[in-house]
């Protein structure tokens, strides 16, 4: 039967990995870097990348790479920084385990780790030494460099510092949105401010209701089982303000390392609908955002994940990339 061009598209690289939904799946996938095709860079960069279903390993590709300062091409196989074909979700794109060398006992916690993570990536921590109470939590990272990053959502002042452990990058979202989040801090205030381990603005909006699950080991037992409405969100601080008066509650605190592994983990918050309000004076309706508050699939599958970089299919910042997905019908 026919070998068909199923889909074609293009994008301008932002220097970060790209996910391309493939409703009809693909047997052959190719990208061409139109920007680099007309340059003679030194060192030479990849201009064409190919992938064959079932034959190309995850995160690998066939790379057509220019030699330094000329248009002459070399074909090489790359084993990382290529394509990852994802057929089930949530699955991790190129999820190699990576060793941590230190986690500071500070708020926010700062990680020391040789890494290739990107700003805003979400990683899972496990196998920690010292900071045991964070083993198994998912965090979002920022201020990323090749030697470390900051976890705005992790408040570790007063805890035992971490001296070792592992991380693994995980998918940006769970399979279904809105998803539940890990709670790392709750203030005692007339409107409680709740900090989460990832930026809550990714999944919640003002007006949504959220339900708290706070194990007794976290201290603020009065919050357990309560449902509140989000009145404000902060992307900079990973916080949300809810209309729950926690002034008289006991203090929220992460269990100590010495309580591991018997202290119950984790404190979480989960989506619980919304209350629509309509102001008859102003005609403004609040608390209703169908695109954000409805339960829905987070990421279309299957999709192709293109790694970014000079020797990768998603290219470097400002590169113009065209891609094609082909299907073999037999």
């Amino acid at each position, binding site marked *: 039967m026919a070998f068909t061009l199923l889909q074609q598209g293009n994008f301008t690289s932002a220097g970060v990995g790209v996910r391309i939904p493939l409703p009809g799946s693909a047997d052959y996938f190719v990208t061409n870097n139109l920007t680099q095709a007309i340059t003679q860079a030194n060192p030479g960069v990849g201009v064409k990348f190919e992938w064959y279903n079932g034959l190309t390993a995850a995160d690998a590709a066939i790379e057509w790479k220019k030699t330094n300062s000329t248009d002459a091409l070399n074909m090489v196989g790359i084993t990382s920084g290529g394509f990852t074909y994802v057929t089930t979700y949530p699955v991790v794109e190129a999820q190699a385990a990576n060793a941590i060398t230190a986690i500071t006992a500070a708020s926010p916690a700062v990680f020391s780790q040789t890494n290739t993570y990107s700003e805003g990536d979400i990683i899972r921590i496990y*196998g920690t030494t010292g900071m045991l109470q964070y083993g198994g939590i998912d965090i979002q990272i920022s201020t990323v460099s090749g030697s470390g990053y900051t976890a705005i959502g992790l408040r570790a002042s007063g805890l035992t510092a971490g001296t070792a452990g592992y991380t693994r990058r995980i998918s940006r979202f769970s399979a*279904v*949105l809105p998803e539940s989040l890990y709670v790392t801090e709750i203030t005692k205030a007339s409107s409680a401010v709740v900090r989460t381990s990832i930026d809550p603005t990714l999944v919640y909006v003002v007006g949504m*209701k959220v339900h708290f699950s706070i194990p007794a080991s976290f201290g603020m037992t009065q919050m357990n089982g309560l449902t509140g409405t989000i009145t404000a969100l902060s992307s900079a601080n990973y916080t949300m303000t809810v209309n729950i008066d926690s002034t008289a509650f006991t203090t929220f605190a992460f269990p100590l390392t010495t309580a591991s*592994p018997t202290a119950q983990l*984790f404190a979480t918050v989960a*989506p619980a609908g919304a209350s629509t309000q309509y102001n008859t004076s102003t005609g403004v309706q609040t608390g209703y955002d169908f695109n954000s508050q409805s*339960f*829905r699939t*987070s990421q279309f599958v299957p999709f192709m994940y293109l790694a970014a970089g000079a020797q990768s299919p998603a290219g470097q910042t400002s590169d113009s990339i065209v891609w094609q997905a082909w299907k073999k019908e037999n």
Partner: protein
Amino acid sequence: MSRFERLSTEGGQLDGSGIDPASEVPVRTDIDAQVEIYAKTITTNEQVILFEMNKTLTKFTALLGQWLREKEDLLMRDLWASSISYINCTGGTNGDQPSNPSLQDFNNIETILLGNDARTMLASLDAMDKFSTGPTRDAFICLSHTNMAADFQKVSGVLLKANYAEREGLRPEEYCAISRFRVFVSSKGISVPGASLLGRTVYKMPMYGVEAAAKIEQNNYSSVIGYRPPWVVSSVAQNSQLYAKFAIARAITNQNWVSGLNATTTQAS
């Protein structure tokens, strides 16, 4: 979907002064879910139909029917996996966080659900005069992975399905009863690789009562299985297609009536 929340039960007493009690504004909670459409096709060449003895179109129709229900189950599994709160088991003995499950972990979730006025899903099974059997209380549902089966056998007070006094009408997937929960297992249950303190696979076990979640079907659209004949699919009338298609919307309708446990197994994983 929407529901009106309970009215406050504070005050309300008339003091004889003739002053009316303050009016209360009812609070409505809206639960939204997007309708999503899923489909699967099988293309068959006429030579397969002509020469294959196994009545392929009939078998492919059955396959599509199986896909349809499996896909629905997996979509609901993903909802449970993503959008509810789980608490780590800590009563087990494997030294991990979460640990393998224990009776105290199950009892903790029962306390949470009862404290939130959740109602049980299944009726009690009365005791009978059969050796080695016992009654089960009316129960909440617990969904889990088949890899957890050996650990359930070790939980204090477990009643394996073979020891139920009455087994008529039980689902094949049911494994045991622990505390106030009837446990159902599946090889497609929720598992999260490398997510425990020690890097083990974590198994998420949603536990819920009635009306905690909803699976909504689209009017006049659900569960369509169809056939496209060769003269439609192929220019030389050689290929035909079977397809299945369904629409679904899913939602957690009340977080008070659902909770769950994270657990690891003592088995190699």
